[in-house]
């Protein structure tokens, strides 16, 4: 029996909202898929597109970016900058063929432990049906192959 594909999700989250929300999911003993690796940043405003590219470079099948709801940012406006940034970056990635369905963005507050668990579960399910991000994985494999000539 072949092992079922387990997608690797990297989540870049802000400390004051989503990370606290994830913590709440944990303390509330909510079950959610173990496929996510969380990277804590102080604010979504700090999340650079380089991080997403690095996650993809390291073999992530999907990336989640999550932070405070607009108006509730611990640093006032970090998430408002992030909102513009992800609108542009996501459309660029989509244009180049890195599909929308692999890059998720959400607002999850410190009280929304449930929402965090739901989103992780939803994302894992969706990525299971999409399968591994093969086109990118071949790019990664190819860098180890010898020069063609």
């Amino acid at each position, binding site marked *: 029996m072949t092992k079922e594909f387990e997608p690797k999700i990297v989540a870049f989250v802000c400390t004051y909202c989503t990370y606290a929300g994830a913590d709440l999911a944990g303390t509330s003993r909510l079950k959610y898929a173990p496929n996510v690796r969380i990277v804590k940043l102080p604010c979504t405003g700090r999340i650079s597109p380089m991080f997403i590219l690095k996650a993809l470079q*390291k073999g992530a099948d999907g990336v989640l970016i999550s932070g405070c709801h607009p108006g509730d940012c611990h640093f006032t406006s970090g998430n408002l900058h992030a909102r513009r940034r992800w609108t542009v970056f996501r459309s660029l990635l989509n244009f180049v063929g890195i599909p929308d369905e692999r890059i998720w963005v959400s607002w999850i507050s410190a009280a929304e432990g449930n929402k965090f668990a739901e989103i992780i579960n939803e994302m894992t399910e969706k990525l299971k049906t999409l399968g591994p991000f093969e086109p990118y994985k071949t790019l990664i494999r190819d*860098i*180890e*192959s*010898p*020069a*063609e*000539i």
Partner: protein
Amino acid sequence: MAQILEKNKLDEMIARLNGDGCEVFGPRKNDTSSWYGKISRAEEFCFDQILPDRPLKELFFPRTEPMMKYEIKKQQVDAENYVLPKKQRVIFGARPCDAVSLTIDDALFAWDACDEFWFERRENSVIVSIACNKKDDFCMCTSLKSSPDVSTGSDVLLHELVDSAGWRVSAITPAGQDFIDKLGDVFSTTSTDVSVKPPAEVPVKFDLDAVIRKLNSPEIFESDFWKTISVRCVGCGVCTFVCPTCHCFDIQDEGDVYHGVRRKNWDSCSFAMFTRHASGHNPRPDQASRWRQRIMHKFNYYLERFGQISCTGCGRCSRVCPVDMGVTQTLVTLSTNGGK
């Protein structure tokens, strides 16, 4: 008496060579670019271009090449070299200026540490060049005291027949003669001599001896000439990458904490960061000093160290430069009144 290769025998030639385990490379073209690439059928050749946009050095010195794989474990580091597969190759349809470039770079790649990647590919390749009977405004092989049908660096030299049905074949080296002998009746022999198209007439654009003299003079290094001649240059590096003799490279480890690949990548002395030290000091802080380096390296330092000019006159640098630089203009100015 002459030996001929007819164009309609090319597919047979490719089949025979492939059958012997030998790959064929040649000039190719598509809508966006032209290069020396792998050929599996004669129709893929494009002999009609002046020369491919990309230089022949790509087949010997790829723009990125993994040298070694490493894995860092608790008590040790495991490293494994990449070994080149022993592949015989025939490069059919090289331009003479590209063939010459290989002999120029041989000196560099053998200097100090012998570059096995370069020499293994050199040893396994036969170069069959086709003399040029066309030129464009950028060609300047004759200014470098070379010619459109120079044989240096080629194992076999072909001259196109007047009726364009094929080429007259001349073996230049024993490896070239071997190549011809092995292919037997792919070639035909005529009892009389044949007429070939005359080589292109490439006008001489500058006096190379005057350039060399000027670059050897004591006052040229500090001269303001470099500032004025290079003011347009934006330091993009395209000239380096399309030049058949440019050979600078950067070695970089690509990977993460636990494993990675050590690679050799093309680099360019035109890049601002090329000579930047870890301290932040840069001995070539402006484009003028970098342009001076480019010219001096090719036409003075390389000559002093290896006895050869590091330029074959192919003209690619001038063709691709986005701001219309290229070495030609500088050399023309140097040879006439520049350098003051």
